[in-house]
């Protein structure tokens, strides 16, 4: 007791002594323009205590009289001021260079100095993340980093965004990076009813069309206004601590927080964006619906004929007769212009009048602040987006709360919670009879989908016969009465839905309620030990309802589908970090940790077929109901460690290890160990290079890591199946049983011997800072090899089964990533120009798949038609299909084979002198959607509050399969078919295929092997050519494989920030106005919609365009106010 008292007295007197040697200093902190820099912090170097700068830029601090103050602010170079001889100081902070000393958030939310990293990581900050007004944070990443592929699948509100870091490492598994928000993994699933078809189906009465809208991935739920930064952990070395979940890289997202000791601020953002459709497929508008008659003469055939083609007569030769009894057209019936009943010349309708101007309103208000010990932030955001497709709509409301508090000097608590509510009205796309583009693009220019009404979007007389109608009959087409409620379409009363019908009668509503967040404790019992615990969760319900009203083509009797997805995942991380310094030069730290992860998903589907009351799209109105339920569960647990060693500020070594167990693997194989080692050498710390102005910073880095992925859920055992169905390839339906059995439909039997997939990666790189970081350069080369990749492999049927999941495939990726950031102009007057470049190249190769398997279908129409496949020896996800016979069959670069058969029973009498019919050449790889390289250039020019930003994205190479053009060419609607009848001599070598499929030619009436002489037969671009050779649907599929490369003016923005000097008088902390435009122009050879398109959305198979919904370009204004 006495001892205790003594120490108290001693402590007090010491405090008094310290007190006696201090002095009070006041000061003002401004930025380069002289405006007060509110929120900057003032700290005593090497000592305790500090304060922050008020809104007027002033501060007051008591400090030891011989000490140095460090004045710092985020985004500015800090300054040190000795206070020995001053009591009032004025400090002007300059905007920081892109210094390589910045701190980045790495795996598990661990903050590290960027200079210490032995692997590539790139950070994108908040000011770059909310530029487009789309409210989609993933979309905003496009072109902002190297090694990053971002594909926004369409301009539809709420459409998904595919993100890939480096290359593909899994064949059928997920290849998208893990999304982590404030240290907690969140769900980025794309919940689609039919994953097998990756979001689209071939259509027809038997296909559910639930997967046929543009898929949404849940990553788009985040509010970009809440994001402080996104760090891309690109390679396995960066993510090895995360284990299986981040085997494809990670997007580490840090949200904005309210800082302790900061005055409260309120920021308000508001933007309005106007969207228009971007480029569209070219359509002909010169020829009418119809086809050649028996004499080969193009003849008009109207909707009553059901004619799908527009190979009819020239529209210029037609007239409307003005009669009021054509139920399909108010202008009357179409007759030849020589017909005396003809009144007015026919003019072509423009199907693209269907699209409208979309509007997006984005509003966000956030309040942040704190007292000395605590900080908080609250944010409320709302996005209201109406699409370029009428009725398509997306509304998202987000609420986020976060706070942290210093409970004691040793204990900090923090937490955050986000609530997201969204509703999305989606419109059918792709190859299904309700697909909007399918109906639109196949409509003949002589048919007006809108029926000439002023508001076809809402007026049922545009797309249906509400009260029935009478068709008076025409030669060959008997008179008939159309039943009320039938739809009005260019092929009569259905076949393909009128787009106005689809948007009104085939609603797809998706409702989301989602909560995710975390709570965390940080405890520092002594200054060399830190204990962190974080518990996070992500729970959501997605309720989809898709209905098809009576008379919809796919469901003549109507249908209603209800799909409920409930997903929840919880993550717990406990880490203990020990730090120790050995002498002056050696710093070490050791982190030990433990992780739990649990995932549960439940999907229920209620399918109601046949509606009793048309128009009442409610499940209770359905005649037959089918229910299915599917539950998935998974748990993982891991121990991990990270040992770091830093020698001076020069050499950094990091060794990590993670031992993980997953419930999806068999107990004998379910423990796996993932190690990584990385080394960073800041060679500019060498005495001979230190202080060099030219090369101010230089680092070499190298790393090696092994990561992996576990098996799909429930892949170990073989279930019985019910209903049990199979077919033999000739009978479409086969037999379906409601009892139980083993079915060939079970794609794979359980494999109790599955192992984790394994990727070993090597990475090396250099980071340079030149001219005091006016120029920074990062270059990375990587190579990774993925083995034991799990895929469904076919096995001998005699095993009793058709397939099994096997650890069979091997994939490699190698690539180069370059980033160059420059500041060509930086003048004291405040003029500054930043010019940044990102470039990356990835080469992927499917080394092997499985025994006896050299090709695996990923998505497409199957049976060798229009597929995206994994093919051994090729990059992942190539386009595969049949071809037009060339003179050398497997060489698509060799001259075409021109038919030398005047009356060929197979090739047709019309084919003489034309390329031999397409689609009969060999099936082979015909395209590669993977780009040769991706690049982007971003320029930012600022002067006294005015900032002009321009970003250009380049995708060089990479094919897109333009199935859209193929289908509309076949039907005589593509622009390219407008040359119909133009005479030509097709280039190529004469010949044909014999009965065995070999190239032969006639020589004096005798078949000789190989091709013959060059063609000189006069022919023409006629219907026969376009239907059988010139398109990929009726002919060889390579003809519609196009270069999908583009150069895109991604973003242009002009911002005016009111000067701080004015703002401080107005008591505003910020006020700015921005004009911006997205996707302003795209330079591309691609002959369809925006080549940045994806039929399958956020899925492994990319590069397909089959009546994809168009992309959007937009213009907008944003107001940003800070109080």
């Amino acid at each position, binding site marked *: 007791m006495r001892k205790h008292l003594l120490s108290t007295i001693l402590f007090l007197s010491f405090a008094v002594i310290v007190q006696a040697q201090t002095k009070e200093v006041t000061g003002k902190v401004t930025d380069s323009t002289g405006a007060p820099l509110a929120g900057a912090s003032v700290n005593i170097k090497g000592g305790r205590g500090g304060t922050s700068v008020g809104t007027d830029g002033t501060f007051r601090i008591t400090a030891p009289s011989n000490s140095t103050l460090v004045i710092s602010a985020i985004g500015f170079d800090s300054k040190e001021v000795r206070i020995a001889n001053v009591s009032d100081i004025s400090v002007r902070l300059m905007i920081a260079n892109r210094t390589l000393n910045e701190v980045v958030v790495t795996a598990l939310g661990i903050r590290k100095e960027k200079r210490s990293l032995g692997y590539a990581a790139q950070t994108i900050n908040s000011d770059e993340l909310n530029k487009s007004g789309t409210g989609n944070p993933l979309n905003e990443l496009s072109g902002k980093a190297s090694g990053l592929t971002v594909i926004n699948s369409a301009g539809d509100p709420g459409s998904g965004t595919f993100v890939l870091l480096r290359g593909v490492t899994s064949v059928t598994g997920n290849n998208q990076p893990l999304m982590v928000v404030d240290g907690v993994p969140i769900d980025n699933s794309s919940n689609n009813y039919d994953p097998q078809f990756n979001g689209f189906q071939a259509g027809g009465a038997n296909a559910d069309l639930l997967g046929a809208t543009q898929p949404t991935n849940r990553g788009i739920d985040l509010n970009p206004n809440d994001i402080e930064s996104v760090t891309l952990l690109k390679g396995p070395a960066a993510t090895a601590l995360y284990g299986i979940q981040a085997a494809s890289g990670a997007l580490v997202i840090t949200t904005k927080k309210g800082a302790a000791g900061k005055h409260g601020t309120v920021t308000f953002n508001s933007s309005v964006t106007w969207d228009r459709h971007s480029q569209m497929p070219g359509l002909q508008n010169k020829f009418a619906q119809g086809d050649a008659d028996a004499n080969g003469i193009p003849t008009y055939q109207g909707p009553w004929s059901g004619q799908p083609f527009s190979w009819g007569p020239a529209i210029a030769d037609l007239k409307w007769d003005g009669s009021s009894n054509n139920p399909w057209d108010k202008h009357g019936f179409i007759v030849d212009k020589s017909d005396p009943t003809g009144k007015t010349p026919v003019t072509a309708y423009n199907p693209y009048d269907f699209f409208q101007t979309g509007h997006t309103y984005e509003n966000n208000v956030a309040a942040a602040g704190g007292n000395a010990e605590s900080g908080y932030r609250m944010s409320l955001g709302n996005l209201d987006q109406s699409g370029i497709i009428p009725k398509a709509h997306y509304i998202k409301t987000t609420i986020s709360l976060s706070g942290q508090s210093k409970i*004691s000097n*040793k204990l900090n608590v923090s937490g955050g919670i986000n609530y997201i509510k969204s509703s999305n009205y989606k419109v059918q796309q792709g190859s299904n009879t309700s697909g909007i583009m399918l109906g639109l693009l196949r409509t003949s220019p002589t048919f007006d989908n809108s029926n000439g009404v002023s508001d076809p979007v809402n007026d049922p007389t545009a797309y249906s016969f509400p009260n029935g109608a009478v068709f008076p009959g025409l030669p060959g087409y008997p008179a008939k009465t159309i039943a009320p409620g039938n739809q009005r379409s260019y092929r009569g009363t259905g076949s393909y839905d009128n787009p106005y019908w689809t948007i009104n009668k085939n609603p797809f509503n998706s409702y989301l309620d989602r909560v995710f967040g975390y709570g965390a404790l940080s*405890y520092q*019992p002594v200054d060399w030990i830190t*204990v962190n*615990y974080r518990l996070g969760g992500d729970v959501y319900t997605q309720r989809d309802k898709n209905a098809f009203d009576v008379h919809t083509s796919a469901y003549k009797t109507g249908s209603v589908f209800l799909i409920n997805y409930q997903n929840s995942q919880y993550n*717990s991380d*406990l880490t*203990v970090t020990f730090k120790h310094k050995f002498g002056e030069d050696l710093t070490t730290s050791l982190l030990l940790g*433990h992780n*739990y992860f649990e995932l549960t998903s439940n999907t229920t589907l209620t399918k109601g077929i046949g509606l009793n009351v048309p128009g009442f799209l409610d499940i209770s109105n359905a005649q037959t109901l089918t229910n299915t339920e599917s*539950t998935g*569960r*998974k*748990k993982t*647990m891991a121990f991990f460690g990270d040992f770091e060693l830093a020698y001076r500020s020069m050499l950094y070594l990091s060794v990590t290890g993670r031992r993980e*167990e997953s*419930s*999806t693997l068999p107990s004998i194989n*379910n423990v796996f160990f993932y190690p990584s080692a990385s080394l960073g050498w800041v060679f500019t710390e060498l005495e001979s290079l230190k202080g060099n102005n030219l090369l101010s910073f230089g680092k070499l880095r190298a790393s090696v890591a092994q990561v992996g992925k576990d098996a799909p*859920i*429930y892949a*170990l*055992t073989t*279930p*019985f199946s*019910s209903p*049990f169905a*199979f077919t*033999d*390839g*000739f*009978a*479409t*339906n*086969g*037999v*379906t*049983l*409601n*009892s*139980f*059995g*083993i*079915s*060939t439909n079970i794609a794979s*039997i359980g494999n109790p011997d599955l192992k984790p997939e394994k990727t070993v990666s090597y990475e090396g790189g250099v980071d340079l800072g030149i001219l005091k970081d006016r120029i920074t350069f990062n270059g990375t080369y990587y190579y990774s090899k993925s083995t034991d990749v799990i895929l469904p492999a*076919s*096995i*001998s*049927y*005699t*095993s*009793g*089964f*058709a397939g*099994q999941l096997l650890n069979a495939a091997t994939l490699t990726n190698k690539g180069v990533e370059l980033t160059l950031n420059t500041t060509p102009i930086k003048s004291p007057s405040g003029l500054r120009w930043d010019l940044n470049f990102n470039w990356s190249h990835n080469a992927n190769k499917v080394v092997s798949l499985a*025994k*006896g*398997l050299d090709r695996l279908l990923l998505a497409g129409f199957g049976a060798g038609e229009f597929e995206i496949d994994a093919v051994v020896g090729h990059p992942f996800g190539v386009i595969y299909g049949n071809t037009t016979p060339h003179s050398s069959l497997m060489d698509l670069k060799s001259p075409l084979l021109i038919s030398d058969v005047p009356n060929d029973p197979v090739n047709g009498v019309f084919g003489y002198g034309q390329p031999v019919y397409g689609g009969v050449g060999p099936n082979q790889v015909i395209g590669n959607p993977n780009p040769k390289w991706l690049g982007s250039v971003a320029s930012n020019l600022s002067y006294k509050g005015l900032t002009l930003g321009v970003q250009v994205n380049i995708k060089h190479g990479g094919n897109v399969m333009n199935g859209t053009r193929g289908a509309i060419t076949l039907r005589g609607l593509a622009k390219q078919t407008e040359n119909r009848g133009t005479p030509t001599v097709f280039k190529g070598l004469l010949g044909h295929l014999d009965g065995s499929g070999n190239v032969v030619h006639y020589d004096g009436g005798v078949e000789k092997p190989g091709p013959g002489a060059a063609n000189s037969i006069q022919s023409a671009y006629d219907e026969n050519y376009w239907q059988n050779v010139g398109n990929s649907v009726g002919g060889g599929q390579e003809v519609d494989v196009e270069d999908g490369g583009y150069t895109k003016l991604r973003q242009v923005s002009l911002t005016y920030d009111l000067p701080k000097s004015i703002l401080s008088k107005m008591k505003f902390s910020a006020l700015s106005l921005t004009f911006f435009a997205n996707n302003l122009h795209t330079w591309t050879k691609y002959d369809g919609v925006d080549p940045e398109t994806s039929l399958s959305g956020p899925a492994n198979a990319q590069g397909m365009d089959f009546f994809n919904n168009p992309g959007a370009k937009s213009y907008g204004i944003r107001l940003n106010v800070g109080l």
Partner: protein
Amino acid sequence: MSLYKLKIFAILGVAMIFAGSCKKSYFANVNNNPNVVPTVAPNLVLPSAEIALGFTQSGDFSRYASLISQQTFGASNQSKSFYIYSINAGTFENGWGDIYTSTMENIVTLRQIADGKGFNAYSGVSRILLAYCMQMVVDMWGKVPYSQAFSGNLTGGTITPKFDDDKALYDSIALLVDNGIARLNNAGSDVLVPGADDVIYGGDLAKWAKFGHAVKARLYIHQSKGTPAMASNALTEIAASFSSNADNAQYKFLGDGNTENGWYQMLKDRQKYISFTNSTMALAMSASNDPRYDVFFDPANDASGAGSGNHFGGLADYYGANDAPVEFITYDELLFMKAEAALRASSDYTNAQIYYRAAINANMTKLGVAPADITTYVAANGTLPVTSVDAAVAKVASQEFIGLFLNPEAWVLYRRTGVPALSATGPGAVPRRLIYPQSEYSLNAANVPASTLSTPAIFWDK
């Protein structure tokens, strides 16, 4: 205070790591699939297995055999290619896959469940079914996997089974039938027995035993050429087998949309692929004014493919309706076998003719031919030559071939007897076996023998 907190943290941390170490509780049952049943009762598997067999036989197997034996005519597309022997290893993928996976794997699974539970009736039925299927497969391909087959999902199983010798397989099949019948005879009454779930016999175990004897009769008759002992064995089995058309082993499809006859589906979905009335058999029946012609065929609807009344390709209702039966082994086939066996065992022309006439009668009665027409037909065709056994067998076979319309056994009969005399419809001779499917050459290359449409010959094909 802080020490107190440190303690809490320490306890929490230790507890957490400890809890994590107890992985049994953490991972227990997590990966057990709740969406499917891990095991099912035999009465839920039996109908799947039986209907799968019915569909597979009325689909691929009937199509293969009937095109080769010219009971049908390949008019276009794949059927035309098949008809002119433009056949490659890929042609048989579906049939091979369906019989091994959806059909026999289910039968084997049924046997496994039934044996495990001591449900002898199901055990017996599964063995008879498996024996029937295996015989059909051996008669098409010769050496095939059996002893190591159906084990892909079993511990110690294989996904690359070896191919067993076809002669030895015949012995295995006979043993399988014997075991099956023994279990049927010891079915018990206090355990689960088949009833309505048995869509072939409705749980009549006596008929299943007869079906077992019929399978054995086929095994012996196939080997009886020049081997009187085998013919005698066949007679013994026939005596224990079917005694009327009511015993016929067949599956009658429900025609309810879920279970429709394979021929009906194929002809509807693939119109104009196959013509019936242009087949060698139909032309011969037409020429001989066979009263069964109109039961089998509807010439008016052949060429058009339009199929009024769904008679696509000219196949009439008896075998072509959506609820038409698919026949496995029938009473009339047994009577034809009996006639052949009597001839081969002891040159018993007298009884052979009696059996032969009874066979025609049973066949025509089954098909609903008017009794007067039967009498007329038998009077004209019911006399066997007594010049030689081979001549008499040929006469029997000529009628049996019509009786086996669309049954894969018709092709076996042709190969055994050379009746009817067929001209090749493509390059080379009439196929005498099927090629193994390409998937075996890709996925089980070490075991699958080389094969053509003629070599190696099935062991009984001499």
